[in-house]
């Protein structure tokens, strides 16, 4: 009885004392790699898009391993919050699913940057958005933009609808209601997806591109994880999510030109190369206007381009070297490859890398 009475608190006290007095075993402190030629030290803070988070974690891990005296924190608080944080000068760089708008740039007021400094926006995280579905016995479907738009607009309500059957003669489509699932939160994924639907199927999808689902209807779920869960737990559900999270769910190949293109990192990188940069931007501001209706062979038009945003010229020069070398690491083939492994993103092409590197070099 006594043992029982005092044993538990005692055990907890011992555990707590152990935990509080010991360091995390993976944080060896000064035990740096042998050939640590790095002289970089300091603390960088970034905030923004949660879509980048998995990639950021792997970039941070890679960069911190090479530079043991550096600590980088990335807050996956959301694109909007990330841009606000960067604007207020609370972070050194931002991650955002969209570039700053022209009027926001004109308004200026970037606290971390030198007065009159431009900002640098780098499309370093490119990720295909997969249209995922959960339908027994069907692993992939070929659909054109109008059909996808019809399904999400609630106009095509059964899986055996002629519009779906027409492009999928071999699939056994059941007489089952389609439950389209969309994001309930404001998100860059939704904005890119609705932008695609609006551009590629303008007569079916009459809403403007927006981070918030534009009408009330269909099932809604929070975040990529919530959406994937909803699609997985339902029957006859369809949704859209970052391709790395498609898992075992069925995916849709999208009609581009005359062929159906399944999502792939290469096809996603290809559409970015086939798209023009936004006009009227400062040098180093690499905002891209994705050409959703491109008919080039082998491009996958539903992609999310997430930017890393930094100052063209920082007000204080303390962290400039750190920002530059971190961004350079992100743009390097090695950095892009790490993100591809850990987050399923599409590595940027060499042509884009050249422009990005030039932009990073211009930071002061």
């Amino acid at each position, binding site marked *: 009885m006594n043992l029982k*009475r005092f044993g*538990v*608190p005692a055990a*907890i006290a011992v555990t*707590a004392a152990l*935990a*509080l007095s*010991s*360091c*995390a*075993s*993976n*944080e060896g402190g000064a035990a740096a790699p042998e050939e640590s030629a790095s002289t970089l030290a300091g603390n960088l*803070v970034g905030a923004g898009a*949660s879509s980048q*988070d*998995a*990639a950021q*974690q*792997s970039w*941070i*891990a890679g960069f*911190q*391993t090479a530079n043991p005296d550096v*600590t980088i*924190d990335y*807050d*996956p*608080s959301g694109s909007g919050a990330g841009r606000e*944080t960067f604007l*207020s*000068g*609370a*972070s050194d760089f931002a991650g955002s699913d969209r570039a700053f708008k022209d009027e926001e740039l004109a308004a200026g007021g970037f*606290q971390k940057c030198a007065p009159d400094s431009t900002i640098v926006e780098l499309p370093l995280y490119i990720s295909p958005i997969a249209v995922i579905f959960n339908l027994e016995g069907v692993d992939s479907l070929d659909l054109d933009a109008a059909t996808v738009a019809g399904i999400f607009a609630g106009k095509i309500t059964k899986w055996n609808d002629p519009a779906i059957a027409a492009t999928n003669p071999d699939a056994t489509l059941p007489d089952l209601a389609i439950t389209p699932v969309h994001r309930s939160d404001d998100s860059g994924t939704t904005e890119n997806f609705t932008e695609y639907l609006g551009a590629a199927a303008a007569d079916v999808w009459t809403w403007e591109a927006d981070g918030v689902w534009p009408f009330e209807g269909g099932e809604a779920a929070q*975040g*990529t*994880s919530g959406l994937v869960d909803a699609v997985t737990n339902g029957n006859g559900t369809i949704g859209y999510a970052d391709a*790395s*999270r498609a*898992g075992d769910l069925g995916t849709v190949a999208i009609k581009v030109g005359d062929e159906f293109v399944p999502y792939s990192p290469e096809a996603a990188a290809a559409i970015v190369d086939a798209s023009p940069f936004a006009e009227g931007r400062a040098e180093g501001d690499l905002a891209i206007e994705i050409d959703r209706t491109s008919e080039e062979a082998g491009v996958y038009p539903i992609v999310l381009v997430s930017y890393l945003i930094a100052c063209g010229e920082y007000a204080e020069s303390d962290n400039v070297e750190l920002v530059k070398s971190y961004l350079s690491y992100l743009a390097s083939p090695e950095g892009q490859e*790490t993100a591809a*492994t*850990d*987050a*399923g993103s599409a590595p940027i092409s060499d042509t884009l890398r050249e422009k990005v590197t030039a932009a990073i070099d211009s930071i002061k």
Partner: protein
Amino acid sequence: MTLQTMNPAPETGTPIANSLTAGRLPTSAPWVILGTAIAVSASVFGVVAVGAGSGFDWGGALVVGAILYIPAIWLFSRLVEGARRATDRLVTALVTGAFLLAMIPLVSLSITVVTFGLARFDADFFSMSMRNVTGEGGGALHAIIGTLLMTGAAAIISIPIGLMTSIYLVEYGRGKLARGVTFLVDVMTGIPSIVAGLFAYSLFAIFWGPGTRTGIAGAVALALLMIPVVVRSSEEMLRLVPNELREAAYALGVPKWLTIVKVVLPTSIAGITTGIMLSIARVIGETAPLLIAAGFTASMNYNLFDGRMQSLPVFVYTQYANQGNPAEAFLDRAWAAALTLILIVMALNLIARLVARLFAPKLGR
């Protein structure tokens, strides 16, 4: 079984009708009726299952059986024992039913958390942070430390304020200020947790510049949420202390403050401790305010006043919401962290109960 304490067992074999036991259902009656109800429901479900060609639904059969039992016991008792006893039996069945009903989500939740949580409930999980970890491996030591420090700080801020406020309200409070405070505590229970986080974040941003995210800011946000719960529950417990005890103390010449410390508080200590533990449990699982006020980091941080601090709920949320590759590793970590959090609260609860038992006066009940 508990009915035995109330109803004397019928004396079997007595030829003369005993006025005390006549018109009573035998003690075994509820069990027989329950068994019959479940058997009836099971056979109906069985027929349906055979008819539809689907599997037998055990859960459904038990639930329907239990529901059938309630009118059945009432009916039998009404016929044999009369209206008053029938109502009594009906309420007993309903109360027990309510308890069993509440056990369903609890059991389901525990099973879910434990089965998923055990996958990563290993030594690494308690000795590593997430610094430089991608994919598999890593641990939540930084989050455990952060949770303990921030919740501890929140408790240090809010327990004295909350307890003293409730003492003020019950023992001293008269007039406008007391009514004002009662009113404001009510308002405070209505602070949405996310607003508390925003407030704490803005408050610290004013003094330490924008973007300041520290453990103490998180603690302040938690304290905001914790104080009203502490006040409300302790106020309720203090009010229950019979006035006779206070008057007896005053009559013996004990000063008011000593009466409160030595008589009122010890009498209500068990209830107050429960209230405080509930308030801690209420805030220790908060995600939204900590995400905003204390931020997010993958590294260890022991200093409440400098730098971002990770906590277990935020860890669970970020691991779930921002899964990388492979996704299972992230989910496993999330569930293991959830299990850890529940175990921490369990431990705190146990300690609090021991403390309460040590201080509580020996009562007859």
